[in-house]
Structure formats: C-alpha cells, structure tokens
C-alpha cells in the first residue's frame, strides 16, 4: 500500500496520479486518520462505494433518483459541453454522506482516497474503452472544509477540466487520477 495516498492497487496498471504540494501535505496528515467519526448508513455507503454508472447522450453519469433518461432532453441544454455537464452532475462532497457533527476534513480526505480507487475499478470495468479523470479537491480554511470528488470522461474533441499545471495555478489542494 502506498503510504502517502493509502492506495492498495493501480487498476490495470495505468492509473496516473497527479497532485499538487498542498494535496501531498494534506494526505500526509490524512494518513494518520485511523477511524471515521460518525456513521455511514448502508444507503450512503452504497452510494459512495458502489455507485451505479450509466451512459446517457454520450455522457457517463452517476445514477440518481429518478434515473437518468437514455437521451438527455432539452431540459439539460444549459451546459458548456459534455465534460462540463458530467463533471458537475458527478460531483460529491464526502462529508455529505457521513452522519456526524463537527469538522473532520482529514477524515473526509482519507475516505475520498478509498472511494477514488473503487470508482476507478468500476468505471474501468464498465467502460473499458473510455478514459477518465477523477478529480479530488480538499479545503480546510475559514470559508469551508472537506473533500470534494467528481469524475468526467476524457474526450479528444473537448478539453479536460484540469489539463495544465496544477502545482502553481490553484489555491486548492488537488489530486487528479487519470486512467
């Protein structure tokens, strides 16, 4: 297991991880987390660790209630491109799935590292011909705290949300898993 990221596998051997210095520092602290404060209901655990992924109008989406239609109708026209749409509807905040009080951002980040690996496996299994980015950002300041995750498909014809230098460009701690 990689002591820095807590990763136990590299799915298919071709996962490339990129992270900035702020994320490395946060992960070093998150590595000390041994137990999750609060509880994770079965329903929320399934949503996190066993999400259903579907394809609609060429977009890979986390299933929701009510289920996504096979073709996204005109209701979803307010979008820049498919990458933008996927990245927004496939966004989760880890802390939203845990029943607890107080502020525990590092626990959220430690859990996010586990969730990322499951999503990598599931997406790779279900969509072997596609390539993806899973993006995790972490924040702990006076404005807010927590770990945020999302994924989107990589497409030749559309620019990835994060495709440049993540070291000096963003005030957030950022990790990108590409596979």
């Amino acid at each position, binding site marked *: 297991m990689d002591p820095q990221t807590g990763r136990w596998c590299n799915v298919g051997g071709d996962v490339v991880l990129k992270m*900035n*210095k*702020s994320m490395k520092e946060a992960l070093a602290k998150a590595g000390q987390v041994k137990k999750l404060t609060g509880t994770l209901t079965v329903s*929320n655990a399934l*949503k996190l660790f066993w999400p259903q992924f579907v394809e609609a109008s060429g977009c890979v989406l986390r299933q*929701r*209630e009510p289920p996504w239609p096979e073709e996204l109708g005109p*209701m*979803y*026209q*307010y*979008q*820049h*491109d498919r990458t*933008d*749409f996927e*990245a*927004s*509807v496939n*966004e*989760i*905040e880890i*802390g*939203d*799935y845990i029943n607890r009080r107080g502020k525990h951002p590092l626990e959220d980040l430690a859990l996010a590292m586990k969730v990322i690996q499951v999503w990598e496996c599931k997406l790779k299994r279900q969509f072997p011909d596609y390539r993806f980015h899973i*993006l*995790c*950002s*972490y*924040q702990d300041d006076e*404005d*807010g*705290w*927590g770990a*945020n995750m*999302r994924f989107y498909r990589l497409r030749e014809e559309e*620019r990835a*949300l*994060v495709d*440049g*230098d*993540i*070291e*000096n*460009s*963003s*005030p*957030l701690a*950022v990790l*990108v898993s590409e596979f």
Partner: protein
Amino acid sequence: MARGGTTRRWGRFVQADTIVPKPENPQDLNRYSYTRNNPLRYTDPTGHDLKDGWDCVQGMVAQVLLNNSSLIPTAREALAAKPGESSAMTMGRSVGDAWSMLQGAIEITAGLGGEAASILVSATGVGSIVGVPAMAINGVVAAHGASVLLSAATEAGKRLGNQMAARSSKGTNPDLLGANGPRLDGSKTIWQKGQQRVDVENFAPGERPASIHLHTSNTGKWQYRPDLGQFAYDKSDVLAPSWVQKLLERRDIRNALDKARKYLGE
C-alpha cells in the same frame, strides 16, 4: 485605467474599481478602497495594479537564498514559490533571479581569474604554498557561482513557462461568468453551515463558465444564476422550486452568494 481619482475627505475612489486584484483578500473586495487602506505600505499608481513592496522584497530575498542553497534541498523546498503567491512576490522572485545570475557570473569570473593567477603563482615553485590552496578556494568560488547561475536560470525559465501556460489557458470570452476570476482546479467552498454550503467552480476562466452552487444536502445542488438572480436545477435552464428560491431571503445565503460573485471577479 484610472478610476476618477480619490476624494481627500474620504480617501476613497469615487467610482468602484472594475478589477478585484486578489479576491481572496477581503480588503480587495472593497472596490472603493485605496491601497488596501494602507498607503504607507502600498502604492497604486494606475488605480488597479497594486504594488505590494513588502511582498516584492520578500520574493527577491527568498529567491536569492534559494539560488544559493543548491546543496540544501530542505531549504530550497521551504524557499520555493508557493501556489497563490501574489504577483508582487513573483515579481520579486524574478528580480532575485536576475540578481543571482549577476552574482553567479561575478563568482565564475572571479573564481576562474583567481584560478589562473593561482596556477601562475604555483608555477614559480615556492609560490605553490599559497597557489595550491588558492586554486582550491577559487575552484569552489567558481563552482558555487556556476550552481547559482544554473539555479537562477532554471528558476527563471520555470517561472516563464508557468506564466506562458497560465496565459495560454486563459480563455477569450470576457462575458463568461468568472472570466476575470482565479482558476480553481476543484470546488471551493465560500460559505458553510452544517450541510448547507455555497461553492464556486472556475476551471478555465473565460473558456468555461464558472458556476456558483448552493448545496442543501447530498442530493440537493442548485445552481445560482446571477443573470436571473434565482436558483436553477444544476446544469439546467429550469428554475428551482419555490422552497429553494425562498432561501434567497436568508441574509447569510445572500451574503455568501455575493461573496461568491466577488470571488469570481464579478
């Protein structure tokens, strides 16, 4: 672009600044203030380009020290540029690199000159008592100069590369929400209260539209539409239900949305 000057009485600009230099600094969010209300420390000759003298000096000193500590990786790491540094600090670092290049060139010249002199002195035979140690010292000086010069050149090149990459990643549509805001490679929470929070996203300023969201639970994500002053379903033109719109009556949420817009340079 000047902003109509300040009034002596109030020390304030008479027109709101059209640029928020550093949205994360609350002082910059007051678009009528001059030099973050600290004219002794800052100057703002154009009304926009705030020069933070202290940051500049810090950047210059840090960069000179960094270029002189090639053999101490921990020191280099501590002195290296951090994400989100001010433009004044970056400017200071550029000056520091120029200074280091000059220092390196002087050390190389002096070291090599000294080396030649030492060889000549050593050739006399008796002079080797002085010449040989002097050769060693001059060699070290020249090597140090070379390492400083190399470090400064590498650092300057890296910075230039980053600046060019940042420039090329800037979009071209100034009408998009967040076109003047900072790039965010993730979701930044602007305000949080329990499970309710307001987040901003701005992955490619001027190229992709930024977004402002209100989250009410793990399934409730509502996009704030500044053009309409209302919430909509995420990634949809359909307006959110009335109970969500009613949240706009809450002062804390209104303030958070206002802060989010300012953060995005709107």
